[in-house]
């Protein structure tokens, strides 16, 4: 394990002045980039050789941008899931490749087994694990905090506040990873990943070139055994203890002095991630109080923080998710015998959950400094429309759920949902998702209910990408353990919710190759599921009959609903309601809740901007009032 700390001086010098840095690098230009795009370009500038990952909001665009902007010799893939991606990343880093692996915070749970072990083994080529957190949460099941995962796995973590910082930071993270022989986490949050800014980036001729040495056999290094783990555990703890000092000189961990009336102020702020930018904006309004920015929450820059705290009586911590900075500062106060009061989530000065906003941080800082709160004089608006997210107009999942609902009407059933667009099948009037937990969990839940309630008809719905990512062990388990349930695969030929990524069933790779599709039917039959039927859900009658027939069979059986995502494959068709025929019964709206349908007076009206002409509504209309419209 290399123990060379010189790199930190290198990092510090590089960060000291952007102007100086730009003098060294001749060819820079500005681009308007999403934070995730900036991270991708930063990885390419750092000479990344291999990039892999699994889609997940808010991380997805990193890998997509690498695929779009990569030069010759950069390998990129969507792996089948995060665990596989982490293992591929580890192998590449063993061989000396600079490697980036991308996922959302929940994905790191799936990849945690290889990551925990990788930290003990270490890496040769730089390995950056990009894990995007989702305060809110906006598009996630949990508000888990990857900064804890850093401490738990002992993997150093960089936490950018802006897209520009993320661009610079990932390049530093690669150097850091190689110097210390450890994977490094880069943890943006949604507003950093999905914020856009004009960013200074290197021209491609300035990109670093990294030529991997190749894998060198060394069983004492690459084969994990208890003896190796015991030795490396000690070395890792020693290294991380030293890094608490070393990172105190890292330019990303810095203080802003109090200015003007706040120059001698005994109160200060501590912030990290996007909240740092909110705090800086708040300082512009309240006055410039002292501020500590934390860019490496683990290992924490202990000396830097202790010096900051020593000058202050009270510090307000501004961060999202868990009180990581807050607890570290309390620990440091205890360790150094400081009397500084640390305020934040644990003292009720900041919210315990959800996103921070410009306004919430402004209010908290003003209250902390004893300034009057901003006056809120917005007039009371009339009742606003409630807009829960819904399946798109024409989405084949709507037809699939409706077909199952029709087929099972009046029977004792449970419908286990999963993670993807089709979670939205829970909305009324479909109301077809009784459970949703995590990727692939619907299969396990359906099997369990069947063991406990054998007379209940159990269904597990899973999307095509989720099928390959997480459903296969559940199917094998059910076949082996003699469970009985109906697996419904909603195959829309893409990973839709995250923005249409290819997967093993699509026959396309991120390297641009056309490859053999992995057949869902063959996979299921290979496992031993004998009843496997495929049907187009937009042919309602046939779909209902298929579900009735297949679900009545014993054991594990499967219906594959195959129809492409409407957001990806434009039909060019649309429906129109004939006002002469429409009797205004509203059956179409009540049964399927398509967002393109509304009641205009006493007649149905079809929103031409939304309708994709799937024709499901026409198959329900009792008076044939809905017809496909001819249009240019």
């Amino acid at each position, binding site marked *: 394990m290399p123990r060379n700390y010189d790199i930190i001086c290198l990092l510090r010098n590089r960060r000291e002045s952007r102007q100086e840095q730009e003098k060294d690098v001749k060819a820079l230009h500005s681009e308007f980039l999403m934070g995730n795009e900036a991270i991708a370009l930063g990885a390419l500038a750092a000479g990344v050789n291999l990039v892999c990952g699994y889609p997940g909001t808010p991380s997805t665009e990193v890998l997509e941008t690498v695929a779009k902007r990569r030069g010759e010799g950069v390998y990129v893939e969507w792996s089948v899931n995060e665990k596989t991606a982490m293992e591929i990343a580890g192998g590449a880093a063993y061989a000396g490749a600079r490697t980036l692996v991308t996922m959302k915070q929940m994905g790191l749970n799936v990849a945690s087994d290889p990551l925990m072990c990788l930290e003990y083994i270490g890496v040769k080529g730089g390995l950056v694990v990009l894990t995007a957190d989702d305060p809110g949460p906006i598009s996630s099941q949990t508000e888990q905090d990857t900064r804890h995962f850093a401490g738990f796995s002992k993997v150093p973590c960089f936490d950018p506040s802006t897209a520009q910082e993320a661009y610079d930071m990932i390049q530093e993270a690669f150097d850091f990873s190689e110097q210390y022989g450890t994977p490094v986490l880069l943890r943006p949050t949604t*507003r950093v990943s999905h914020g856009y800014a004009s960013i200074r980036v290197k021209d491609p001729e300035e990109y670093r070139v990294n030529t991997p040495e190749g894998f060198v056999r060394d069983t004492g290094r690459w084969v994990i055994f208890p003896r190796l783990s015991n030795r490396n555990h000690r070395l890792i703890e020693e290294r991380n203890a030293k890094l608490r000092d070393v990172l105190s000189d890292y330019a990303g961990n810095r203080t802003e002095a109090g200015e003007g009336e706040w120059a001698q102020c005994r109160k200060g702020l501590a912030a990290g991630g996007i909240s740092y930018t909110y705090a800086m904006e708040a300082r512009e309004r309240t006055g410039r109080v002292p501020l500590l920015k934390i860019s490496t929450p683990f290992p924490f820059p202990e000396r830097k923080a202790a010096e900051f705290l020593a000058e202050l009586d009270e510090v307000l911590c501004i961060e999202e998710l868990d009180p990581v900075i807050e607890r570290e500062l309390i620990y440091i106060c205890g360790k150094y015998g400081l009397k500084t009061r640390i305020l934040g989530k644990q003292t009720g000065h900041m919210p315990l959950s959800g996103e921070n906003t410009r306004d919430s941080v402004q209010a908290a800082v003003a209250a902390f400094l004893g300034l009057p709160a901003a006056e809120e004089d917005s007039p009371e608006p009339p009742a606003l429309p409630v807009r829960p997210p819904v399946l798109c107009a024409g989405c084949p999942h709507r037809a699939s759920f409706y077909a199952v609902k029709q087929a099972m009407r009046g029977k004792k059933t449970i419908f286990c949902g999963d993670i993807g667009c089709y979670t939205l099948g829970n909305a009324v009037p479909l109301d077809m998702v009784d459970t949703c937990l995590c990727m692939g969990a619907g299969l396990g839940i359906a099997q369990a209910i069947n063991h406990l309630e054998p007379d209940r008809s159990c269904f597990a719905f899973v999307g095509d990408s989720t099928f390959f990512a997480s459903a296969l062990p559940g199917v094998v388990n059910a076949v082996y353990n003699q469970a009985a349930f109906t697996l419904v695969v909603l195959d829309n030929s893409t990973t839709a919710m995250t923005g249409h990524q290819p997967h093993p069933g699509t026959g396309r790779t991120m390297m641009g190759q056309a490859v053999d599709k992995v057949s869902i039917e063959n996979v299921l039959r290979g496992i031993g599921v004998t009843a496997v039927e495929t049907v187009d859900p937009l042919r309602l009658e046939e779909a209902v009959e298929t579900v009735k027939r297949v679900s009545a069979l014993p054991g594990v059986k499967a219906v594959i609903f195959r129809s492409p995502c409407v957001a990806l494959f434009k039909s060019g068709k649309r429906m129109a309601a004939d006002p002469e025929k429409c009797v205004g019964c509203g059956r179409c709206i009540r049964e399927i809740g398509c967002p393109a349908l509304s009641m205009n007076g006493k007649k149905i009206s079809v929103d031409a*901007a939304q309708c994709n002409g799937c024709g499901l509504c026409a198959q329900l209309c009792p008076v044939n009032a809905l017809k496909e419209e001819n249009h240019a």
Partner: protein
Amino acid sequence: MRKNIVLCGVGGQGTVLASRLISAAAMAKQIPVMSAETIGMAQRGGSVFSHLRMGEGIWSPMIARGEADLILGFEPGEAVRMLPYLKPDGQMIVSSRPVMPVTAALGGNAYRPEEMLAFLREHVSRLWIVDTDRALLEVGSAKVLNLVLLGAAAARGALGLTREDLREAVRTQIQERFHALNFRALDAAGD
């Protein structure tokens, strides 16, 4: 020049592309831009917004309440939802065309768009309710609401950008076969 713009509407209405076009037009004039928008599940028919900030010395892409120079409302109810972000002397340009939520169609939640427009008339002094139904009919496509509203905002000087600046952004950001349609949409709101 420093400008804070909130674009708001319903997922699928094209707020993201509109935000992208403003940014491209500003970048072409060497104006620094930051923006943030809704991505993910809420894009599926939920309320969506973009915050867009132009000028120097900005830390965060997010706009605070009472800080927006312009709210570009793609839908009356969504414009009302975002009203607290408008500066007291800020401009609002809003589409007259409501998007009925499925919850309202199912009878669970009454939504009366005319109440929203009346509320805006009462509380926003610099308001332009664009007759987008008429404009879109003239253009011949229901899918270019975003360009109609951008054209309206440019006409009122609310973006610090001209219609020609936006046409140039369309040329660089959108496939050529859609240019003519988008150019027509940019002019459709009139002045």
